[in-house]
């Protein structure tokens, strides 16, 4: 665990966001003024950040990406992804109630209403779980749909009111980053800082409570308090993101960056960092695309950006990625092929009692029962990897010191393994070759040393061939100075 690094990076990310905020601001533009330009004008306007409305929208989108990414990471590892979904739908009646109460789109009233509704939703889920036989998934489904239906009815009613018609309350459904005002932004900044600080300060408590709640309780940690604090923070960040992402899709901002991060790393602190960064990038990207399209709903575009990043992680993650795994498999297959060529060269030399260092392509092709072209291709592959040199005049390959070393290792691994299987595992000698063909490529130095020790440093394999030692070639007699294969072996 090296928490310093992510701490610093997160702090940096936050700094960048605040720098954007502090850029000299004029009066905020109104929502309606942002439409009507061409795509190029909109892009220019966005990228130069001249317009304060653009700055608010961008900063807000990035902030919500950070807080949703961080908290979403805990949801994903605790298998609570659906809780995020239910929570985010349950807030809608609260949004509407907040609006009715304040009679305007006051961010604070809406925030309070939404948080209360969200927490009420999670409490109802808990209640259903504890008093009935229903399991969590059914309880979540019930609450999600029920609260959401109430919310939709209320929003529709508000739009029929004289004050509600032009209020933009419908923007809460699919999100509109351009509608983020200075007060919304303040709220988002507070939530993002709160979420980041909580994760940094209580990392250890959150980690153990998420991984092993029973153990956490046994060492006296208030697991219930930790759980509900996390839920409260989650409600905060969902609600602060509503304006930009919308009720329908805000849960995707919790899950998508965290899911992508989960594929990218095996350690929680890195997952948190990646989730925050991916959240930030999806937020910014979604916001940008929404401006390009003259105020398309921001929520779907952010989620699409996040999904694109997830797809990239799915395909290219260093360990779990689909393409990466395919690529690793391919490159290990080509390494095995190369090493087999190397071994063939050694075997040819061995059969000649190491007279002449060069091995002609014809010999190689005959031994491997292949065409000269194939042998040539493989010889080139050896050359490319510095394992051999090629001498066009004689059409023969000559092992470099590195190549020779590796060849000896491979033959040695192969024969040691055969010996081990026949001796220690009592497998008949005619069964061990296939196995050794695979094992020889993966045996590490430590294992080889252990094998040697167990086999009393034997020097002959079960088929009676010598097990080469690292200086086998030199020890095999006077090395011929010529590169040429002995007469009769050339092309």
């Amino acid at each position: 665990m090296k928490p310093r690094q992510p701490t610093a990076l997160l702090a940096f990310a936050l700094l960048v966001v605040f720098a954007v905020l502090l850029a000299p601001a004029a009066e905020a533009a109104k929502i309606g003024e942002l439409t009507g330009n061409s795509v190029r004008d909109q892009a220019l306007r966005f990228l130069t950040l001249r317009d304060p409305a653009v700055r608010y929208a961008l900063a807000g989108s990035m902030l919500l990406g950070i807080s949703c990414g961080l908290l979403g990471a805990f949801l994903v590892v605790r298998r609570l992804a659906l809780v995020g979904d239910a929570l985010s739908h349950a807030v809608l009646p609260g949004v509407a109630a907040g609006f009715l109460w304040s009679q305007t789109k006051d961010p604070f009233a809406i925030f309070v209403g939404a948080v209360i509704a969200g927490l009420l939703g999670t409490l109802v889920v808990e209640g259903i779980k504890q008093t009935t036989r229903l399991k969590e998934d059914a309880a979540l489904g019930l609450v999600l749909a029920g609260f959401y239906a109430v919310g939709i009815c209320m929003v529709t009613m508000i739009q029929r009111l004289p004050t509600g018609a032009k209020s933009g309350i419908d923007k809460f459904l699919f999100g509109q980053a351009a509608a983020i005002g200075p007060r919304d932004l303040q709220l988002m900044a507070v939530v993002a800082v709160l979420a980041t600080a909580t994760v940094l300060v209580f990392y250890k408590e959150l980690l153990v409570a998420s991984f092993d709640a029973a153990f956490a309780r046994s060492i006296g940690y208030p697991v219930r308090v930790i759980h509900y604090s996390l839920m409260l923070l989650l409600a905060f960040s969902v609600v602060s993101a509503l304006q930009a992402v919308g009720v329908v899709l805000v849960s995707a901002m919790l899950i998508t960056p965290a899911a992508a991060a989960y594929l990218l790393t095996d350690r929680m602190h890195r997952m948190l960092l990646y989730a925050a960064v991916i959240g930030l990038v999806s937020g910014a990207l979604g916001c940008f695309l929404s401006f390009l399209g003259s105020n398309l709903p921001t929520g779907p575009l952010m989620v699409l950006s996040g999904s694109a990043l997830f797809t990239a992680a799915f395909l290219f993650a260093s360990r779990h990625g689909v393409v990466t795994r395919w690529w690793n498999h391919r490159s290990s297959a080509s390494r095995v092929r190369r090493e087999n060529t190397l071994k063939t060269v050694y075997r040819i030399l061995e059969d000649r009692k190491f007279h002449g260092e060069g091995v002609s392509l014809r010999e190689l092709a005959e031994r491997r029962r292949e065409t000269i072209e194939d042998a040539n291709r493989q010889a080139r592959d050896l050359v490319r990897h510095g394992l051999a040199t090629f001498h066009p005049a004689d059409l023969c390959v000559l092992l470099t010191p590195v190549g020779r070393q590796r060849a000896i290792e491979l033959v040695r691994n192969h024969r040691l393994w055969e010996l081990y299987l026949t001796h220690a595992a009592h497998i008949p000698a005619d069964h061990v070759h296939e196995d050794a063909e695979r094992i020889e490529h993966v045996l590490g130095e430590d294992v080889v040393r252990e094998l040697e020790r167990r086999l009393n440093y034997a020097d002959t394999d079960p088929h009676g061939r010598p097990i080469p030692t690292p200086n086998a070639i030199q020890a095999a007699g006077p090395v011929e100075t010529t590169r040429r294969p002995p007469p009769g072996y050339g092309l």
Partner: protein
Amino acid sequence: MTPPTPAPPPPPPPLEIHDLTVTYHRRPVLWGVDLAVPAGKLVGIIGPNGAGKSTLIKACMGVVPIAGGWVRIFGSPLSRAHRRVGYVPQRESVDWDFPVSVMDVVLMGRYGKIGLFRRPSRADRDIARACLEKVGMLPYANRQIANLSGGQQQRVFLARALAQESDLYFMDEPFAGVDAATEAAIVTLLHELRDRGCTILVVHHDLPTARNYFDMLLLLNLRRVAFGPTDEVFTYELLQKTYGGRLTILSEVAEAVRQHGAPIP
């Protein structure tokens, strides 16, 4: 002639349980259990499935709520004794795909001793490393916990418990699903801990080995059937009473309690 000075009171036992009752969905799963475990003993808890073995140790550590009675650890209530208690939960109780390394998990054993707002120090890491070494898992320290075998997972949990440096240990089926080599290693480790003066309670479900492993046995089936030195308790009659007799009346009454919602203390 001076009056004889009164002998100092004996130190409180590591674990004292009085009239402990635990309910699950209002159904009693442990009923009026009394227990006082002397120091420096390796105690096996045995009984049939659903006898409340895991529940007993969880209740002792405050992992599940207590419906009645009390638990004292070294004479003090649990809330003041967390630091003296070590715990090895059942292996299946956690998600082994969780993004943490073996080292991260063992360091969690130090969390109870690290204050709020603090991170594990170098000394904590050294202790964790020593504990990993002890269970033969040091080469795995930086691996993610997925892909460990059952025996290796159990060793990681044991290392975490060792890192707690406690005087009283609760272990929930540490032998379940581990290979013979790990089982032998765990037994050696338990004996070592016991010889250092630790008191260890182990939930166990294999009768033949229970006799050899433990100094004392607690036979449990909803209530305490017997508790004492292994030689005295491991008898046909008592085992029959624990397993064979099925205590049907007791569990029928427990079911009735659940259905009628009768008050349980």
